[in-house]
């Protein structure tokens, strides 16, 4: 043997080192450096798909009404998916029956428990097809439903143990449903943004944040702890001028009206006279050709600009009076209600005019004589004067409402080609001009407000985390639209319309209101077509202290008349009536009348109850009481000319005696002592029946007979 043992071992060891160990180590080092340094960029790129930046949607702000009712809010809902491969086999197959039963009961009762069981088995065991790790269970469940579903077997193991995948979404909810739907509007992710949601989209939306997510595998994305993220900023809340009650009243009245008259559409606006705040804005358009279903689809109130017709005569009168051209008792020859200006014949719509020649200007307005108004303007103004006057009244200016889509008004003038010799006459009666319902109302509101024109607005302030970040004050468009004397006369004219004129059938004893009817033919240029009208009524109430101004416009009523007084007027009344009834401040308090006098025979006896309340009642009816006991409850007993109050404390009795008490006090006493009260009847407790406890004793249940 050439080499000894030890040398042979050493040679072999070094051979192994040289042949295996060192080359392998070198390879590993080379490969590490290759990946980490040499080809770093190439491999790093692979990593990018494992990370992604996601946008974290900010919570959208709420929209509130004037009285802090929630009009629109975002509520979370959850979409549920299921990965059947997550749960351990034992967990899965042991619990599959109970899970199937619960799924059938709570998630989709369209499938029987057996069918659910089969599909649960199929999901996991099926060898054909692609494994579905994302089986859709339900698109939307509420938080409380989710809490229950999370307790189901298998699901209660969580995302990692049971495979229930929960994703949070946010849905926009309008607690008042369709109420003011169009005014509140909506904002779609991409696409249409309308109403307040659209106009205030930016503040409502807040600022979305950025979050880096990484892929854990199996389609699970989790946020990394990378601090370079942007937190989302919650959207601000928008507080509106809308009053839920008035909006409800307005919508109901308008819907009744448009249904009754099978109209194409109707719009109604209620405005706060002093501020220009819009309390209600209702828009209903027919959704079918038979016109028996209506919905808030389009904001006619701000986007439909039509020739207003007779409601415009208020502006005509303002011009004539302001310029001192006529007074209310000036006379005008209405020529039996028919007159031809150049080639076009104008007729009064009221048949009464046929018998009239010379009437006062007041009558001409109150009876809505077209010829009267047209003749005055045609003869008293020349050139562009009348158009200019109307423009001085801001009738050619947009209202500036916050919402998108307001149509600009149009007032004809000499600078336009379409201005002709008859333009002045037709403009006097509300043609050759176009105004949206809101623009017309803004003008009427100025008259109601003593000549101060207010800008209509819908939003009072924007708040974030309870702090007001932007507040909108009422804006004065024109402090003095006309001389106070002119405004006074106009108000008396509008009151006259209701008292004597075209709206006298709408008159009510409850309160006084003022307004003007309007009827305009919308398609006079199309000679042979069926005539289409727009009926309107604009006004305010109460007449002596204008609080709300209202306009109602109904397009193309087909059934039951088409005049403003027939169609729009009743809607106005219904709105005004209901608002008036809910206006506490205008009603006389009931207890301000003469106080009742009690005769001795009517003095209360054995009347028991809460002492401060008894004392208040006795004081009100002028019954003198000598002294008040110091207790909480007291008993009233007649004593000659007066009454005496004695203190009682039924709670101390073994079985409290509550005879003579009203139910409220009796409940207070008995339930605090742990009794269960079963009241019968109305009034005062006249008898008490104790139920037996089953051992011949009085139990815990007591029946009260009230009379």
């Amino acid at each position: 043997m050439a080499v000894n043992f030890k040398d042979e071992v050493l040679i072999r060891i070094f051979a192994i080192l040289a042949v295996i160990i060192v080359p392998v180590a070198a390879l590993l080092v080379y490969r590490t450096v290759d990946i980490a340094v040499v080809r770093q960029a190439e491999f790093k790129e692979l990593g990018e798909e494992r990370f992604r930046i996601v946008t974290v949607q900010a919570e959208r702000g709420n929209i509130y009404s004037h009285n802090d009712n929630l009009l629109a809010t975002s509520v979370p809902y959850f979409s549920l998916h299921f990965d059947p491969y997550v749960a351990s086999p034992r967990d899965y197959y042991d619990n599959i029956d109970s899970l199937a039963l619960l799924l059938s009961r709570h998630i989709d009762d369209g499938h029987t428990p057996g069918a659910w069981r089969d599909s649960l088995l199929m999901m996991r065991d099926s060898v054909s097809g692609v494994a579905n790790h994302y089986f859709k269970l339900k698109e939307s469940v509420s938080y409380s439903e989710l809490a229950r579903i999370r307790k189901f077997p298998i699901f209660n193991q969580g995302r990692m143990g049971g495979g229930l995948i929960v994703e949070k979404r946010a849905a926009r909810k309008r607690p008042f449903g369709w109420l003011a739907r169009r005014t509140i509007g909506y904002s779609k992710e991409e696409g249409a943004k309308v109403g307040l949601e659209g106009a205030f989209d930016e503040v409502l939306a807040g600022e979305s944040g950025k979050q880096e997510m990484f892929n854990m595998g199996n389609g699970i994305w989790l946020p990394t702890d990378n601090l370079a993220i942007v937190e989302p900023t919650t959207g601000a809340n928008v507080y509106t001028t809308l009053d839920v009650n008035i909006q409800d009243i307005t919508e109901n009245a308008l819907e009744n009206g448009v249904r009754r008259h099978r109209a194409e559409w109707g719009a109604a606006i209620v405005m706060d006279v002093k501020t220009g705040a819009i309390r209600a804005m209702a828009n209903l358009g027919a959704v079918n050709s038979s016109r028996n279903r209506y919905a808030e689809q389009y904001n006619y109130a701000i986007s439909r600009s039509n020739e207003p017709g007779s409601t415009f005569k208020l502006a005509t009168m303002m011009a004539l009076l302001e310029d001192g051209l006529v007074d209310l008792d000036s006379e005008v020859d209405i020529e039996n209600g028919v007159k031809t200006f150049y080639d076009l014949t104008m007729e009064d719509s009221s048949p009464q005019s046929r018998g009239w020649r010379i009437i006062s200007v007041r009558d001409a307005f109150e009876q809505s004589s077209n010829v009267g108004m047209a003749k005055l303007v045609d003869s008293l103004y020349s050139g562009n004067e009348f158009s200019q006057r109307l423009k001085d009244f801001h009738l050619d200016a947009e209202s500036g409402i916050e919402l998108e889509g307001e149509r600009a008004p149009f007032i004809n003038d000499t600078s336009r080609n379409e201005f002709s010799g008859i333009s002045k006459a037709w403009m006097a009666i509300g043609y050759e001009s176009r105004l949206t319902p809101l623009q017309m109302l803004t003008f009427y509101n100025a008259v109601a407000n003593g000549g101060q024109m207010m800008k209509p607005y819908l939003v009072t302030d924007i708040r974030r985390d309870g702090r007001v970040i932007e507040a909108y004050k009422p804006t004065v468009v024109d402090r003095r639209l006309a001389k106070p004397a002119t405004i006074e006369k106009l108000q008396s004219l509008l009151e006259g319309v209701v008292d004597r004129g075209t709206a006298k059938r709408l008159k009510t004893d409850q309160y006084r209101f003022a307004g003007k009817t309007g009827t305009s033919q919308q398609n006079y240029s199309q000679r042979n077509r069926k005539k289409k009208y727009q009926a309107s009524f604009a006004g305010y109430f109460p007449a002596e202290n204008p609080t709300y101004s209202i306009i109602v416009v109904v397009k193309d009523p087909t059934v039951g008349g088409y005049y403003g007084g027939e169609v729009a007027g009743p809607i106005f009344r219904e709105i005004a009536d209901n608002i008036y009834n809910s206006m506490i401040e205008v009603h006389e308090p009931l207890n301000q009348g003469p106080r009742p006098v009690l005769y001795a025979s009517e003095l209360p006896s054995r009347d028991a109850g809460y002492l401060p309340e008894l004392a208040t009642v006795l004081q009100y009816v002028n019954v003198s009481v000598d002294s008040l006991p110091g207790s909480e409850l007291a008993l009233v007993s007649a004593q000659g000319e007066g009454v005496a109050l004695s203190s009682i404390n039924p709670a101390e009795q073994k079985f409290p005696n509550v005879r003579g008490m009203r139910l409220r006090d009796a409940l207070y006493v008995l339930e605090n002592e742990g009794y269960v009260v079963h009241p019968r009847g109305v009034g005062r407790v006249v008898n008490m029946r104790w139920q037996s406890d089953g051992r011949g004793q009085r139990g815990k249940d007591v029946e009260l007979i009230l009379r």
Partner: protein
Amino acid sequence: MNLSTRIATELRGDRVLWAIIFILSLVSMVAVYSAVANLAYRNSGGAVSGYIIKHGVILGFGLVVIYIGHLLAYTKYSRWAPSMLVIAILLLLLTQVFGTDINGARRWLTVPGIGLTFQSSDFAKLALILFVARAIGSKQDIIKDFKEAFVPIILPVLGICLLIALSDLSSAIMLFVVCILMMIVGRVAMQYIFMLILLGISVFSILVMVGSKYPNLVPRAATWEKRIETYFNPAAAKVDDRRQITGAMIAIANGGVIGVGPGNSTQRHTLYSAQSDFIYSIIVEEYGALGGVIIIGIYLLLFVRVIRLVTRSSKAFGAMVAFGLGLSLLLQAFLNIAVNLDLLPVTGLTLPLISMGGTSTLFTCVSLGILMSVSKYIEAMTADAS
């Protein structure tokens, strides 16, 4: 007596090896703390403290095991080897019957009563290395003989490796290679070795073929096939199968030269077994290629120190045990790193002493304890000689 001399008297044996053990333990704590993120998210909602405390306790216990192991005379292990081998065979058989399936592989045995689970192959590996070392040591005089030396050594090796291969092919192959290299170093005739390598390859091929025909006989065959297929044809593999390895590549690339710094790994979140199989890539991500090379260097140094033991050992058993255990640690480390570097299909082998793993860490520590026992003995011998 100051602390360092006290430690020096307590810890006998090669100081460098002791230092390596402590350094690896420290690296392990730091690396696992970062790498356990994914596991912690899946099982405990992201809280890592529970895992790191448990890992620390196991490592601490492991160090105690090494200390106790090195106190014992290594000759004792030689005496225990045959009975350990018998127990190993029994345990492997038990595992095949009663074992727990984890990820489709039946490798784990639960100790009744205390609920501790361990891989029987870890024990078998230790037992076999001890046995082979003992056999080679005792047959040095007749080592070139086929019937007297080769066959008695190779039969248990084949038996154990086959049993392990049923559920854990990579461990089996590694153990087989370790045993062969031990035999080479132990002066077994080379012609038999070549014969053996051929035999090993053919047996494995037969297993795969039988497995694909009769999946019930060799349940792991399908996994082997898939892994091998995935390895040789990455494009054909499903994204999920390549996910882990791609993640490891990304992590290593993120690391660059000096790494992104401790705790800044991003791929630790996305890698399923970042704390065990893929801890090397997380180390490279956080400490760069430099860190990776140092880790390779540490294992290499460990092996070099083991060779130093072998050359200085006067007893063949001591030399062979040290060589076998050291080689198995080194090979396991290299295989694990090779997987991390996409040089080998995913094997499930951990990075010794660094990866998080309960009982397998303890078995590594037992190996190191025996190694240190040999080292202590050799140190004493050389001290006596000089």
